[in-house]
Structures are given as structure tokens and as C-alpha cells.
């Protein structure tokens, strides 16, 4: 079996494992000794790991010649997304607090 094919199978199996773990944490957090907040942190960690797995194993943009520019665009987008999501939650939370 070629290296490329075994990489894809590894990616698929690890994504499958991560998805199933996240699912069982969601439906039964008590089994994993997690409260609601701990469960949220756990499933977000799993989601981040799985997104990395998919980026590395499935989205094979990284073998292109211009990999530097692909990465540059990706990381600037990631920072824009962080700003949008984190600061939206932050500012709305503060407004909500001052309204009470």
C-alpha cells in the first residue's frame, strides 16, 4: 500500500474515533465524570484536534508549490475569525451584563 493511501486511512480512522468520542461526551457527560463546562471544553478540544487532522490528511493543499502563500492566507483568515468570534462574544456579554 502506498504511503499516500495509508495516510488517508489513518486520517479517516482518527477522525472517526474523535467524532465518536465527542458524541459520547455530548450524550453522556456524567459517564466521563464531566460537568457541563468541562464537557464543552472537552468537545472543543476534540474539534480542534479533528480540524487539524482533516487539514493535514484530507485538505492536501500543502503539497502545492506555493505552500507559503496558502499558509499565509490560512493563518491571516484564522486570526480574522478569532477576532470576529471572540470579540463578538466578549462585547455582547458585557452589554448584557450592563443591561441588568
Amino acid at each position, binding site marked *: 500500500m502506498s504511503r499516500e493511501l495509508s495516510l488517508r486511512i489513518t486520517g479517516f480512522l482518527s477522525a472517526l474515533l474523535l467524532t465518536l468520542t465527542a458524541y459520547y461526551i*455530548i450524550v453522556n457527560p456524567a459517564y466521563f465524570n464531566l460537568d*457541563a463546562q468541562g464537557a464543552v471544553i472537552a468537545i472543543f478540544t476534540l474539534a480542534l484536534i479533528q480540524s487539524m487532522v482533516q*487539514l493535514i490528511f*484530507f485538505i492536501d*493543499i500543502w503539497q502545492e508549490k506555493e505552500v507559503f502563500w496558502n499558509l499565509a492566507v490560512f493563518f491571516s483568515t484564522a486570526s480574522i475569525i478569532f477576532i470576529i468570534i471572540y470579540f463578538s462574544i466578549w462585547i455582547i456579554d458585557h452589554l448584557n451584563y450592563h443591561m441588568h
Partner: protein
Amino acid sequence: MEASDTKIFGFWIYLMTDLIIFAVLFACYIVLHGNTFTGPSSQELFHMPSVLAETLILLTSSFTCSLGMFAVHRRIKNWALVWFSITFLLGASFLCIEILEFTDLIGRGATWQRSAFLSSFFTLVGTHGLHIAIGLLWMAVMMFHIVWRPLGGHTVSRIFRMALFWHFLDFVWIFIFTTVYGIGYLQ
């Protein structure tokens, strides 16, 4: 830089801007998901087994799509067609489950007019579903290309971009699964 590299880079930039659209919809959903306006909450509405089925179907379709791309790179038309057909069927069944889920919600009075939570839910998940529908159309066109055209550089580059789009949709779904269904069901 070759022409196909430029096209892939341009398409990559498009995907990143699409990701920003999804990020804005995610931010809306996270902010609004408690505002049920005395209507049904996320925990009452979500049916987790069908969400798991959707997730596994989309994940498997991403895998079969990468196998199709593997065959395309080796210029094996038959296997490429087999894998892309499987991917297409999996994508279509994902869309069917999602449409059934939406009709079920609407039948129970949980329409997008009911509350801010439901508006943001339908906008986010519906936008992803629309992308899946467009991806399926694109995949069907690419399968006709594989049948009728030689697998030259241009066709391979087009199929590569379609596969990239499909993996991107699975990538976005991980966060829909976690943010919308995960948090919605836990809290």
C-alpha cells in the same frame, strides 16, 4: 507559477473568505442561542442520533472523495468514478437527513420566525446545507467530465478544486457539530 497553481491559490482564497462568512454566522448563533423567546430550546429540539448519522456520513464522504482524487492523480477513470459516485450518494443522503430534520422542526412549530435562536440556527445550518447542494451539483458535472474528457491537467485541476471544496464542507461541519449540536444539547 503555473496556471493551475494560480487557480488553486485563488480558489483557496475563496474558501478562506467563505470561512469568514461561516465565522460570522457562528458568532451570531453563539450570541443568540439562549434567546428562545419562550419557544423551544435547543435541548428540546435536537435529535442526537440523526446528527451523529449526518456527521459520520459526511466524514465518510470526505474520505471516499480523497480516494477518488487519489485515483484521478493516477489517471484511473473507473475507480475515480466509483469513489465519486459513492461520495455523491453519501452527500445526497446527508442532505436528505438534513431536509427531514428541518421539516420535522418546522412541523413542531420551530420555524425560523419563532425565535432569534431558531433564526440563527436555520441560517447557519441552512447555509452549510446550501453549500452541500452546490458541491453535489459540481461533483455531478465533474463525473461527466471524467466520462467524456481525457484526464488532462485542466480536468485534474478542476476535480482537485471540487475535492478541496468538499473537504472544506466537512471541515466546517466539525464546528457545526460541536458548537450547534454539542453545546446546544449540553446546556
